[in-house]
């Protein structure tokens, strides 16, 4: 396949792994932030190619995993209403709220539909003028531009029956919270390539300076990830703490400024709750007050819905890279993708799900 195969070349991957082995002189703890990167590492078994000195811990970058219970409960409340067509990305449907999930709301008669883009929701709104179409606008900085564009477009067209339940989360404030925790062991960061493609990397320069730690913006394919690790190891071994860009084919320092502009027009920065981390100041986006007519929270009056997060699993520690999934007694036993105890087991990008799917127990005789 054009553009991807060269980043999955086993010989290239092998030679980068060899370069890492040759360079490393002592143990280093590295964190990849994005769930897509975690998924690739597990799917291709990249950690098996690394020398024992390198420990990878997994960050909070799965948007499904960090979505707080509260926003799921709000989604479920709206989706169950008869006048609503509730439109969501597929992997949100299985995430359990306090009492139910979107699949069950659908089975009980709620009109819940899977979409691949918020533009699909706009189409539905145009085609169903008597229904209220609500898009579940969730995710990191990566999905925010398209979601902002949908609201902007709805405003332009005067689509009165479209709204968005928006709960975007922003990576740099969450990383600041994690890196600032006294328990944090992370010495180098692989920054999320797609987020940086939108936002650029200025914010990561602040992180590198504040915490004196090297940051490499990495892609998602095996060769990308190994190369990012090699670059981090080189920085660590040389005592540097800079921002470097491995993902040059997609990312520039300034990012996608057209995308940033549309986001600014539609969203404003707000405090946001993160599952596993807590409330982080200025770490999310909500719809600007002047676009309130497209804000599902206000239309359906769900602001009052709050949810207590029960204390059953250790996802709080897992999402901060303090524990590995296998450290949890419930992992793979009481907590599986069919019966997830916690969000990191629900989404295919969740770290627990990635471990469960690819690495439940080392197969006998495996390398």
């Amino acid at each position, binding site marked *: *396949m054009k553009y*991807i195969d060269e980043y999955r070349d*086993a010989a290239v*991957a*092998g030679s980068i792994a060899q370069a890492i082995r040759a360079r490393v002189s002592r143990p280093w703890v590295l964190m990849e932030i994005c769930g*897509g990167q975690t998924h690739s590492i597990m*799917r*291709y*078994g*990249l950690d*098996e*190619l690394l020398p024992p000195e390198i420990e990878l811990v997994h960050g909070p970058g799965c948007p499904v995993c960090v979505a707080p*219970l509260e926003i*799921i409960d709000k989604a479920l409340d709206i989706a169950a209403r008869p006048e609503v067509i509730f439109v969501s*990305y597929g*992997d*949100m449907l*299985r995430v*359990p709220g*306090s009492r139910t*999930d979107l*699949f*069950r709301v*659908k*089975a009980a008669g709620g009109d819940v539909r*899977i979409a*691949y883009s918020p533009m699909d929701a706009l189409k539905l709104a145009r085609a169903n003028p008597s229904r209220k179409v609500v898009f579940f606008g*969730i995710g*990191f900085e*990566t999905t925010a531009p398209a979601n902002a564009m949908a609201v902007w477009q709805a405003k332009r067209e005067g689509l009165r029956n479209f709204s968005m339940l928006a709960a975007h989360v922003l990576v740099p404030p969450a990383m600041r919270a994690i890196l600032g925790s006294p328990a944090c062991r992370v010495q180098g960061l692989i920054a999320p390539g797609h987020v940086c493609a939108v936002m650029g990397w200025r914010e990561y320069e602040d992180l590198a300076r504040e915490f004196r730690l090297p940051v490499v913006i990495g892609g998602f394919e*095996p060769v990308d990830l190994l190369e990012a690790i090699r670059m981090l190891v080189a920085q660590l071994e040389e005592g540097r703490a800079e921002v470097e860009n491995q993902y040059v084919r997609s990312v520039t320092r300034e990012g996608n400024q057209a995308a940033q502009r549309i986001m600014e027009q539609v969203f404003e920065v707000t405090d946001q709750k993160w*599952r*596993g981390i*807590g*409330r982080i100041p200025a770490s999310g986006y909500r719809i600007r007050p002047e676009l309130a007519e497209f804000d599902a929270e206000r239309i359906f009056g769900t602001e009052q819905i709050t949810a207590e*997060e*029960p*204390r*059953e*699993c250790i*996802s*709080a520690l897992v999402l901060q890279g303090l524990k590995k999934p296998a450290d949890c007694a419930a992992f793979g036993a*009481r907590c599986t*993708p*069919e*019966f997830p*105890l*916690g*969000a990191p087991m629900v*989404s*295919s*990008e969740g770290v627990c799900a990635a471990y*469960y*799917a690819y*690495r*439940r127990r080392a*197969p*006998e005789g*495996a*390398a």
Partner: protein
Amino acid sequence: MIPLVCPAPLTTRDTVLLGHGSGGKLSAELLRDVFLPAFANPVLDRLEDQAAISVGGARLAFTTDSFVVKPLFFRGGDIGSLAVHGTVNDLAVGGARPLYLSAAFILEEGFAMEALRRIVESMAQAARAAGVQIVTGDTKVVERGSGGGVYITTTGIGLMREGLSLSAAGARPGDAVILSGSIGEHGIAILAEREGLQLETEVRSDSAALHTLVDAMLEASLEVRAMRDPTRGGLASTLNEIAAQSGVGIEIDERAVRVCDEVRGACELLGLDPLYVANEGKLAAVVAPEAAEAIVEAMGRHRLGRDAAIIGTVTGAHPGMVTMRTAFGTTRIVDMLAGDQLPRIC
């Protein structure tokens, strides 16, 4: 930092979910908890894709399948041809020669007669091509809004070959695993049509009747232990079923599993794994190691087996588990999914 943690599990299954029809773990659970306890008998309990029964000295294979595909027409086929191929294939992979089919239709009030004619003609053509006859049937009409236009159930009877015993419980350590061709085309063709995906190259469903390919394999050797067509749930689910029912492990080689560029591209775009995407004209077989080469060669001469290859081996290690050796020389688990694959957020 406040320690926010996880939501309570949803362990009750008080309603039927779409995932119960996915062919994954939820489907298996439905069988185990609802159908099997009620219907239990030695023939059913073997859990093959077709029942093997003896009637008046003849060994028959007997199977049924319902088709609820949306859209009804797609590149490479339609619900009619699919309904014939699906049931013919369930007989064929049991080692039986397909003979007769029934066809039951549930039609929705208001459905276009012209579309129904096209579907029925397509069924007739598929049946003729496969050398089977549709000898009985039934029609019901439901009110507008309570059906998906057309649902079809086909039931098939075939004659079992003498001296052959295929079973998903028949795999033994050392056996070779064969795949008849590239995977994922049917599922992606359906998805592309349903979601209006604008793919650069259009993927066609691989829907086809596999019984003559099976004939070619069995002429080359009778040392076939297990055969299945990896439909919903994909190759991963099929191999997991064989591993579980045989009490063996299976190791496949990523590089040997063919996925065409268009399917790979669509899967990348949607965040799907082709190992879990449906096929309607492929089969996976577990065969004795010494027979593997001859069988693959025979398949290679058949139109539907040109890309057949040995993709892995059966092992005594990790019973019930399927693993895959990646192109990087690392190993990962190929698990059975709980429900349908869900497209990712980003």
